[in-house]
């Protein structure tokens, strides 16, 4: 039986006349890698702030690790770590001193802190710079320090708010792999907020899409893709050794085919039901050879755009 790590009920946050989060109902299970997706300003950060007890919900309730986020927010912060979107560190201190302060605030003893900090600096690859002041750090190095900072309390759950924003591709991959390892090897529950579809597709087992404060859908990426396939039909991508206008014309008359489009050297045949056999027969009839043929998978982008526009 998997325990829910996060459970929200009608969680709502209103700033003046702006409803940042609107009746959010969400469950994230222990050990899950959950992707929280949505465009900028959709309410992702506000949700995390409420769950961490930094912002008080206007309505609704939520629990994190079984603790109420309002009544027991201090308990929540004992088991949950956070890497905020615009996190900053004490610039005139070294990473070790920064981590030591966070460790002290978590009530770790001196020996525990020394051990833990050495391990974490090693894990995030900052050992070399452990005594350099943070003001000289690059953005990537600061982000690594941010991950170490979130983990010093040995959390059960970590919120990452846009962790790879503004980083170069090499560091992005490194950070992403680091977070994935934490989830797979240590069983850490990860709540990743991101507007980067690619990132979510690579890491998350389940996603929730939020738009203008409302949760539009939550499901696994696989289910979302299939669902979208069922609604908008399937597409097959062809590469032929030659295409003629007559072939295109006849393809469109094949039963089940809705449209045919040509992009560069590729031909896309869109169908409302599986008519792959008829399509290839028609191509063959016109004397064209099939060089490549593959079903086109729906990207998260399509799913995302569909739900985003739908909301």
């Amino acid at each position, binding site marked *: 039986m998997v325990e829910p790590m996060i459970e929200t009920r009608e969680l709502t946050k209103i700033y003046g006349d702006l409803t940042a989060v609107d009746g959010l109902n969400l469950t994230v299970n222990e050990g899950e890698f959950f992707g929280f997706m949505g465009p900028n300003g959709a309410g992702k950060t*506000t949700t995390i702030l409420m769950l*961490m007890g930094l912002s008080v919900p206007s309505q609704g309730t939520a629990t994190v690790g079984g603790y109420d986020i309002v009544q027991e927010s201090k308990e929540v912060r004992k088991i949950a770590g956070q890497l905020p979107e615009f996190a*900053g*560190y*004490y610039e005139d201190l070294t990473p070790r001193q920064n981590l030591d302060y966070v460790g002290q605030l978590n009530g770790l003893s001196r020996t525990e802190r020394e051990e833990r900090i050495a391990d974490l600096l090693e894990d995030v690859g900052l050992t070399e710079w452990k005594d350099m002041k943070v003001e000289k750090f690059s953005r990537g190095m600061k982000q690594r320090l941010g991950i170490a900072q979130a983990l010093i309390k040995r959390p059960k759950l970590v919120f990452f708010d846009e962790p790879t924003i503004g980083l170069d591709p090499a560091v992005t991959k490194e950070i992403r792999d680091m977070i994935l390892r934490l989830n797979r090897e240590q069983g850490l529950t990860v709540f990743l907020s991101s507007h980067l579809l690619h990132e979510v597709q690579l890491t998350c087992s389940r996603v929730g899409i939020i738009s203008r404060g409302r949760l539009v859908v939550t499901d696994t990426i696989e289910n979302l893709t299939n669902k979208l396939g069922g609604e908008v039909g399937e597409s097959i991508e062809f590469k032929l050794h030659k295409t003629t206008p007559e072939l295109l014309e006849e393809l469109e008359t094949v039963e089940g085919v809705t449209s045919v489009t040509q992009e560069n050297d590729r031909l896309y045949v869109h169908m409302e039901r599986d008519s792959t056999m008829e399509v290839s027969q028609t191509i063959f009839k016109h004397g064209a050879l099939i060089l490549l043929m593959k079903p086109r998978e729906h990207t998260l982008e399509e799913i995302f755009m569909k739900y985003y526009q739908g909301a």
Partner: protein
Amino acid sequence: MAEVLVVSRKEVADIFGSKRYLILFALILLLSTFSAYQGAEYIRNNPEAGFLAIFSGAGFGFSFLQWMIFFGPLLGLALGFDAINKEKTSGTLSILLSQPIFRDSVINGKFLAGAAALATLTVSTVGIMCGLAIPMIGFGPTLEGASRVVLLSLLTVLYLAFWLSLGLLFSVLTKKTSTSMLSSVATWLFFTIVINILAYLIASLMVPVPSSMFRTGDLEGQGLDIFQSPEYLELMQRRIAVASTILKVSPINLYSEAALAILGVVQVLPGMDAPSVASGLAAIWANIAAIAVGLVVCFAVSYVKFLRSEIRPGG
């Protein structure tokens, strides 16, 4: 409780390592040394003056008291004006508050650290002044004098802590550190300069000199004697009374009155003993209470504001 200590320990380390504090501290030490020399000089020239005159006696420059009256506000404000908003803009506050601590530990810890730094500054300044002046004048304070020195130090710490809490309030109320810095400087200028001008302006508006006093005919005969007339002198005294009532709201004024009373240099006529410590304290009890109330109000407002403040996305 442990959380407050963790925060204040870090803050104290920050303050003592910061260039800002070191510059202020160096400046104050330098000026105190000058004041000690001047005070000692003053005592040599005025044999009736007791040991305590090293704090108030001034020759060509400012005394310790005058420095504190004038620069004390800047000291306190300098340690408080960016306490909260700097952490907010630099993004460290969201990490700090993501730890298992109560939010008030942050503001309490910061205030405690600032107050500790100001107390250190006061005590070491007073200590250095005594250390310099005693060999120069050849005698130390009596037991009563020593108790007055202790009381003066406590009063000074309270006064500086008031300005610290005002600075803290600015740091909670404003988003940018530049805004809170400007507010601090403006407040300082207001209480050191503007309020005096304002007080006399209001007084002269409230107690006008009636034009009947300047009847044209009279000017011919009496000349400038009008300025010596009892009616005119009474008007002027009423003006001074109004102005000093207005000035009573100034913490600077409250402090200087109280400090002079504690030192016992108020209304000391030749051949008369200075008022005793107890009677001096009794006379300025209201002043001390007023400064303390100001401190508590500033701190309480910042406390409530900070606890209720929303940590919004993007800082």
